[in-house]
């Protein structure tokens, strides 16, 4: 805590120095505020921090790189930095190690309140939540209210807040529901160590469906399972968003880079929407050549691509933060208390915590350039195989 606070202070002072330096530089050119016509040197080299290892969840960013969309938007080099859990994206952004970061909204809200730093959600890539709670068909857990007295698996590490928010909406907390930490495999459910396990539609749910049911000798199917989608509950929270440094956004060069960056990744995600098979295979190739990423096999990546597309292309404008969904996320974050009785946040986040200014500008420019982001995603049929290979 103290470390991150100190880091935050360091950043604030660094930002202040930068701002002073920039003020000194821009003093020479007479500029109006808000105009960005050549009174700064455009950023051409940026870094993006992911929240996990390369996989189809991040397809849009890798495609922007592979398909040259970053170059089209004037970037010479964009480094996509994976995280093996060692790097917390928002912390890396605060520390100035990267220029933009992908992170779930509730996790960042927690960081913002705990450390007092300022970050801005400049694009809400995933419009819907991909978190589910999965149980066996015969166990009778079809809604969050059924959690009462049951043993519920959760990952922790900030991935658990939707569970607690959904429970809070049903008047449940960790005194009435037994919350157990589960690992990232689905063995806890398969061995009946929990009544319902947490699973992302695009990852762990697929892993379950890639496992052979010893009773039948065939893979498990959705008919064997009851799935509660948190998106349908009061606990739904916004997930993968692109975060920028709030104070740095006052620097016209950074703000301009943000818009160009969003244009490039919007094109990347558009490619993934229209060519899911190709996108999944490109990401799989990148992931399997990445250092020690050990992705689950190609079929799994295709499943993930399909599910991720469903979360992104919900019919809303790409990347625009839906105010209602934001408010729901904040309300959930305020109401949730974890198994240790600790809240995620206690006050509303600052108004600067999200801004549609940059994504709207990016979308408008893309429209002028004839890139059509309207339209929806047509889900494909993915037949899973054992082990996703």
């Amino acid at each position, binding site marked *: 805590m103290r470390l991150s606070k100190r880091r935050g202070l360091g950043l604030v002072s660094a930002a202040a120095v930068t701002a002073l330096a920039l003020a000194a530089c821009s003093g020479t050119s007479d500029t109006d505020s808000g105009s960005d016509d050549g009174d700064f040197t455009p950023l051409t080299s940026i870094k993006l921090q992911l929240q996990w*290892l390369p996989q189809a969840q991040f397809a849009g960013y890798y495609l922007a790189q592979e398909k040259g969309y970053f170059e089209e938007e004037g970037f010479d080099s964009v480094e996509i930095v994976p995280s093996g859990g060692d790097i917390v994206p928002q912390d890396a952004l605060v520390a100035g190690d990267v220029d933009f970061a992908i992170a779930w909204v509730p996790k960042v809200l927690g960081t913002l309140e705990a450390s007092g730093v300022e970050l801005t959600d400049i694009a809400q890539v995933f419009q819907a939540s991909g978190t589910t709670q999965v149980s066996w068909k015969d166990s009778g857990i079809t809604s969050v209210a059924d959690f009462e007295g049951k*043993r519920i698996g959760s990952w922790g590490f900030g991935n658990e807040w939707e569970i607690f928010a959904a429970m809070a909406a049903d008047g449940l907390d960790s005194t009435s529901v037994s919350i157990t930490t589960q690992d990232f495999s689905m063995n806890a459910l398969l061995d009946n160590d929990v009544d319902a396990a947490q699973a992302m539609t695009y990852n762990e749910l697929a892993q379950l469906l890639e496992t052979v049911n010893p009773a039948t000798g065939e893979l498990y199917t959705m008919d064997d399972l009851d799935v509660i989608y948190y998106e349908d509950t009061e606990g739904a929270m916004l997930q993968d968003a692109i975060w920028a440094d709030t104070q740095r956004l006052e620097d016209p060069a950074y703000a301009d880079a943000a818009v160009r960056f969003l244009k490039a990744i919007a094109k990347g995600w558009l490619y993934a929407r229209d060519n899911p098979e190709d996108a999944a295979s490109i990401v799989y190739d990148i992931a399997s050549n990445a250092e020690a990423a050990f992705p689950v096999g190609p079929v799994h990546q295709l499943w993930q691509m399909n599910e991720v597309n469903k979360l992104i292309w919900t019919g809303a404008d790409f990347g625009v933060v839906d105010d209602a969904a934001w408010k729901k996320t904040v309300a959930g974050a305020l109401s949730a208390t974890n198994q240790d009785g600790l809240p995620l946040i206690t006050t509303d986040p600052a108004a600067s915590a999200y801004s549609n200014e940059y994504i709207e500008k990016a979308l408008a420019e893309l429209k002028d350039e004839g890139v059509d982001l309207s339209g929806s995603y047509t889900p494909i049929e993915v037949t899973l195989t054992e*082990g996703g290979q």
Partner: protein
Amino acid sequence: MTSGRAQGGAARRWVPVAWGAAGIVAVALLWELYKFVGPSEGVVIGQVEGEAGSGVLILPRTHDRAMPHIWTMIGRLFEPTSGGSTPPLFVSVAQAALLSLGIAAVGWLIGVAVGMLLGLVMQRWKLLEWGLLPWIVVSQIVPLIAFAPVVNAIGNQIDRGGTPWPQWLSVAVIASYLAFFPVAVGVLRGLEAPDRIHLDLMRSYAAGYWPTLLRLRLPASVPHLLPALRLAAANAVLGAVVAEVSIGMRGGIGRMLIQLAGQASSDPAAPWGPMFGSIVLGLIAAGSVALIGLGLKNYRRGEATA
């Protein structure tokens, strides 16, 4: 491990090898035997009907997800790591193991250097022994998973400050933290090992500290030093693997194990690849130290086994 046995005939030299192989076969047989006779869902006591996860598992589950067959695990080693055209698992395991081995070796070197220095100064000045030894013992109580992120955070700050500090260096430092302990204690005991009569002889020669150290104490410390170095090697490997996992460094065998364990529901044999890899790693590390022992053959009288 006594020198007498090693100097025996060629046939007798194969005896330990045969015993080693028999041990591995016995473990494999036990595994398959328990898998065959043990109940698929294990033995749980105190289970409440209809309550998931209740009771205590006293005998492990034996189904294919919990205990894959030995031949499934070995077969998996020759299948692609991540499906598609990725290299076979054993190749990935070997690469990861080599990286971890390198880091552990650096950690071992740091640990041995620090441990020897500590042992030397503690032997030289009794006051330092009284002052340092309790702290050295206490240092090993600190849980590694609590200590590792601190080292990583310090390393990151140094790196940010401009001095390059790659992540593997943090792992090596953590490995050395486990490795220095047996060396410090072993060197101290070893340097104090010479008999009173030999020390008195040196004194009667009017030999000072350095000649006594070089001609008497160091040679006499070898039987204590070698087991300490071996322990340090095993500790360094253990420290490196745990540190990789707790600070999230990629590329090593610990990280690979965690990655594949996360996919263990649908691919249960895969995590056993890096598990075998880390066993081999530990053997290689301990074996390399045995090579040092060969060079010091003349001093290995009455070596304590460890």
